């Protein structure tokens, strides 16, 4: 009965996550342990305080602008704003200088690919209605078409294991010819884009990151391509996804 209870048990007790048996054991323990009882009381007060502070919001009348009918009719107004928002976001993402993630010791190719990729990301991710030219359901035809336009075989990476489904792709102009842009989206509506164009091989350097204002691109060169995966993610979340893409694109080339 008086076996040592871990902190996890005490927190679970406070949060109502224990069954009756667990609660009994914790309470017996606390009765002999004023120090622990005090800490538990403090945590209970914190939970109580959160509820007292924020539960009254539940009884507030819903502001009319938040009702679903209003949201539906506001959507067009928001689209008008989109042009301005995109311009502002572009300026922020592409602006040089402080505050952002910038490539250190990068090749100018990588920096250029990153800039193009971030611009394409910001412009097309904002488009709710027509973010892509070719839907993800036509993956194979899209891969054939875009490989032809870029002049080298390219597979379309699959990120579904990480929760991102292929929305589709499109062809874009790049500094040196054509570029492919693939878009992915998770069930929460977060979008990633993969930007691919031909670029001189920089000798297999590692992933590098560029971007700011909440949008980051992971950039690398691979075979004939410069690639960038962009999204609204912190570096630690974006990096494993970029590595998956890198691996899958490499597998496609050798096959």
């Amino acid at each position, binding site marked *: 009965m008086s076996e040592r209870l871990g*902190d*996890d048990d005490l*927190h*679970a007790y406070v*949060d*109502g*996550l224990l069954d009756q048996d667990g609660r009994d054991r914790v309470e017996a323990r606390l009765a002999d342990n004023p120090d622990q009882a005090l800490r538990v009381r*403090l*945590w209970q*007060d*914190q*939970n*109580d*305080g*959160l*509820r*007292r*502070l*924020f*539960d*009254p*919001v*539940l*009884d*507030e009348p*819903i*502001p009319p*602008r*938040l*009702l*679903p*009918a209003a*949201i*539906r009719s*506001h*959507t067009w107004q*928001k689209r008008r704003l989109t042009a301005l928002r995109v311009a502002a976001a572009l300026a922020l993402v592409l602006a040089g200088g402080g*505050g952002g993630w910038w490539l250190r010791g990068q090749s100018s190719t990588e920096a250029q690919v990153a800039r193009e990729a971030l611009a394409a990301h910001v412009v097309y991710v904002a488009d*709710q209605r027509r973010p892509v030219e070719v839907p993800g359901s036509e993956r194979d035809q899209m891969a054939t078409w875009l490989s032809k336009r870029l002049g080298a075989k390219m597979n379309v990476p699959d990120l579904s294991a990480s929760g991102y489904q292929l929305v589709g792709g499109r062809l874009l102009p790049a500094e040196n010819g054509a570029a492919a842009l693939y878009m992915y989206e998770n*069930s*929460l*509506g*977060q979008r990633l884009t993969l930007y691919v164009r031909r670029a001189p091989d920089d000798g297999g350097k590692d992933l590098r990151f560029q971007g700011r*204002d*909440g949008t980051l691109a992971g950039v690398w060169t691979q075979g004939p391509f410069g690639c960038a995966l962009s999204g*609204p993610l*912190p570096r630690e*979340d974006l990096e494993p996804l970029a590595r998956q893409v890198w691996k899958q694109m490499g597998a496609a080339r050798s096959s």
Partner: protein
Amino acid sequence: MADSQLEAQIPGLRRYARALCAGDAALADDLVQDCLERALSRWQSWRGESDLRLWLLAILRNLWLDEVRRRGTRPDLMDVDDCPDALAVAPRQGQALALRDLAGALGRLAPEQREVLVLVGLEGLSYAQVAHMTGAPLGTVMSRLKRGRDRLAQLMHEDGPALRRVK
């Protein structure tokens, strides 16, 4: 059908957003609006498979995180005095002050600690549900919870030792 299901979730979403934003009602409602827009445009991807409330909480959480990153503000640098008057909800003065302290302290917690405290303490999610929603391992969730609670107690103590107990 989507509209009535969504509408029933709005008060809960507003409460969650208000807590994540540590009482900033205008920002919180903007996030709720963005969340509902996103939910309406992604209704097909939800398809009733998972718990609607958890799906909406997760969408809102991501929008909030985007906002935190966009602002680039470390919450511990936020001005506690920005804590709005709407928080003075309690009838007794001492209690109102203590609650205001709590809101101020919440706003100074690191975002990852604040969200765990809110999801667990206010939204009643299990530790496993929080781990799933935040994509963090269970051990990380537990350590954020413990550190968050310690830090919150410390912040309230700094703000006014006499008021650190909410009750």
